[in-house]
């Protein structure tokens, strides 16, 4: 009886159930020259940061309802940047009239690159970028996303390599969400789980912007979801103190298992605030439509996960602890957890995600 139960569990794990949360992230046949990233909301801000910080190794980005690199930076200091929560909540979300000119953000990129904190921005000229803003988005103003478009142009991405879907879905338009063809809230909703059904295949258009024409998606993905240990990618394994969950998730198409003859692509998807697995379970990483496209087009998908860090979980408590928490479970785009390098290669979360990429592509240890 027990043996039958164990066999059943093994079968469930093989056919799409979750492996142990403590399993280390494995290597897969992923081509390091075909790595891309996307995100929604805070995930979009983080995707932009990751793309700019590691432009030498990332071929493209999908920015859904998010704004420009460095949006929350007030000034550069000797040992990092000083960023403000009020810039995040104000100009970078609801009062775009207070955003700096695009040239100012471009200047920040140049400054950080000159310090060696991010990759040379000249790499961005070969990137492909997809950006989206919804007509009904009441969380991140469309002009913030527009500024992100302007910054990519200023950083050298040619117009023909940018696909900007600017409030052009029919009807009332999309609310603040990852948009799907057939799952989620009403199209114009601005509520949890921030996945909306607008009869628009955002995953497909975004992936085809990044990788070129693709085969039509699978009706149902046949690959497997793998849970992996995120703590090994954080100094001192202090994942929660740095806004990361202990466990991340990976979608591996059937044709991309370890023994695959041909290399696969690698795409990183960053959820938004209040969308981590700790809150939504498997909903985000199974329902946004990416896995269906990944299955047929040999794309391994990494879904790193955020943790909503409390004061008690910070590495140390001091007079500024309240300013360093992450109550909504967002990616770090304003420097919480005392990370003054959050938007550079040395940022804890950027370094962790990049280490995951290097592990999967076989470049890291």
């Amino acid at each position, binding site marked *: 009886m027990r043996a039958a139960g164990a066999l059943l569990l093994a079968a469930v794990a093989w056919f799409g159930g979750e492996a142990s949360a403590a399993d280390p992230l494995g290597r897969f046949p992923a081509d390091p020259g075909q790595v891309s990233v996307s995100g929604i909301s805070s995930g979009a801000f983080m995707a932009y940061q990751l793309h700019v910080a590691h432009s030498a190794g990332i071929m493209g980005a999908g920015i859904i309802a998010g704004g420009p690199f460095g949006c929350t930076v007030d000034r550069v200091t000797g040992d990092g940047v000083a960023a403000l929560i009020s810039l995040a909540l*104000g100009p970078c979300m609801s009062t775009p009239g*207070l955003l700096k000119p695009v040239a100012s953000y471009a200047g920040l990129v140049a400054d950080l690159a000159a310090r060696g904190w991010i990759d040379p921005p000249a790499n961005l000229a070969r990137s492909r970028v997809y950006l989206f803003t919804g007509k009904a988005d009441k969380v991140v103003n469309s002009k913030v996303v527009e500024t992100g478009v302007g910054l990519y142009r200023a950083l050298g991405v040619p117009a023909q390599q940018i696909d900007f879907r600017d409030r052009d879905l029919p009807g009332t338009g999309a609310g603040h969400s990852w948009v799907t063809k057939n799952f989620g809230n009403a199209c114009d909703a601005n509520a949890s789980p921030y996945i909306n059904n607008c009869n628009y295949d955002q995953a497909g258009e975004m992936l085809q912007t990044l990788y070129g024409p693709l085969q039509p998606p699978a009706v149902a993905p046949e690959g497997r979801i793998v849970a992996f240990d995120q703590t090994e990618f954080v100094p001192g394994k202090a994942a929660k103190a740095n806004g990361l969950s202990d466990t991340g998730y990976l979608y591996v198409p059937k044709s991309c298992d370890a023994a695959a003859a041909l290399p696969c692509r690698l795409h990183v998807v960053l959820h938004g605030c209040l969308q981590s697995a700790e809150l939504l379970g498997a909903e985000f990483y199974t329902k946004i439509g990416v896995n269906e496209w990944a299955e047929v087009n040999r794309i391994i998908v990494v879904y790193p996960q955020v943790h909503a860090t409390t004061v008690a979980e910070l590495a140390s408590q001091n007079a500024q602890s309240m*300013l360093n928490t992450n109550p909504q479970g967002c990616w770090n785009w304003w420097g919480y957890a005392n990370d003054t390098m959050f938007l550079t290669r040395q940022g804890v979360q950027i370094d962790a995600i990049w280490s995951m990429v290097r592990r999967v592509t076989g470049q890291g240890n």
Partner: protein
Amino acid sequence: MESATRIFTNGLNCFHEFLAIELRNMEAIGLAQRKMLEGAGVLAQRQAEIAEGTFRRAFGSQPSVPTTPSAIHAAVIEQIDSIKTTMMEGQANANILSELAARSSGDVANILQSRMMAALDEVKAALEQAAPDKIAAVAPAMLTVQPAAPA
């Protein structure tokens, strides 16, 4: 004689230790003051930028005078939206200034608290080194709570 020499030497070392602790305290206060000035400078600069931005927007493009009923309607709607935006931007600017001030105060508080904690540890170490046997002898008496005399 030996005992008096030892006591004198211990006393002199203790004095030097306390002097060094006090110098480090003064250094920390100086650093905290510099942080306060820095923070005030950043705050002042941001206030100036906000004032300049508000000034420019207030004297920006002049709207044309509407003549038709539908144009008047649209102009009123536009004016209401403009007022709402101005209010939101005002609040956002206030939040930015508040956060700058809070972070600056937090930096200063952290410097002073760190120095206070370190100074207490240093004083403790200096006392223990100066006369460890004497402190050990009197410690139990020092720690005993004397009951209050009955009324």
